[in-house]
């Protein structure tokens, strides 16, 4: 069966390409999703895209990933910095999760420097625009990179 990976876009990411393009770039969420689809084809995985502005809905969706998904790419947007509920959902789901940010959060306001979800994710990729998502998918799936990991 084809491996399934969830791609979760948090609050305001549906506005990508339409707001603050200086920070987030001109690509829309749909552009990013279609680039991810292309990469997923190469890697032989299928993607389940999800966007919600509502914290509780994202929590529910992450809970539903348990046992169904091979991995999760999560751009939790601003929830990254304060949603302990999201953090608990990730650790309860027991699905390897990669934290993704379009911008380099460490170049921005101090409140964005802390991620409460990072400790329960396998890793974090930030600052590479839409490419952050592609790299995250490869980080999760690409076998050829794995021999070095103990």
């Amino acid at each position, binding site marked *: 069966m084809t491996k399934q990976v969830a791609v979760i876009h948090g609050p305001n990411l549906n506005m990508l390409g339409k707001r603050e393009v200086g920070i987030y770039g001109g690509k829309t969420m749909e552009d990013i999703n279609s680039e991810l689809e292309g990469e997923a084809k190469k890697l032989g995985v299928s993607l389940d895209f999800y966007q919600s502005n509502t914290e509780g809905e994202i929590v529910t969706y992450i809970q539903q990933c348990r046992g169904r998904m091979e991995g999760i790419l999560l751009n939790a947007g601003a929830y990254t910095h304060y949603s302990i509920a999201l953090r608990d959902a990730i650790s309860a789901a027991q699905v390897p999760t990669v934290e993704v940010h379009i911008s380099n959060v460490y170049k921005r306001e101090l409140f964005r420097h802390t991620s409460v979800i990072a400790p329960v*994710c396998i890793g974090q990729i930030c600052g590479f625009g839409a*490419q952050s998502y592609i790299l995250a998918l490869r980080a999760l799936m690409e076998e050829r990179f794995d021999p070095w990991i103990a």
Partner: protein
Amino acid sequence: MKIKRYLVISGPNMNLLGTRKTSIYGEGSLEDIHQGLHQRALELGVEVDCRQFNNEGAIIDCLQEATGSFDGVIINAGALAHYSYALRSAIGAMLLPCVEVFISNIHSREEFRHKSVIAPVCVGVIAGFGKKSYLLALEALFNLGDVK
């Protein structure tokens, strides 16, 4: 067209990879990482120059000389990431894109490792994917193009 060249710097104690705390850092050696980078560079049609330093000042010297000779830098500053303002200034002064990498997920470790003083002057950060972090950083630099 000029072949792109990237400088890869590993900081203090990275020469011990594979021999210490393998549950955190994995079994492979730094030499394995360098080999993997060279192989990936070959596939991408670029060159990598991989170096390791235990000495903070030596890294700064190396970064100061990088502009003009390289197209980008990948840095795993090790523990220096968390407190070396001198390194931060050196990266900031450099006219090259720099990607910060970590082998481990620093955010699931001790609190003093949660903060990187060099992250704000880097293009981006890749942390937590084992030695794969370096390879992803090479791809990130190579594909940078439209991103600052």
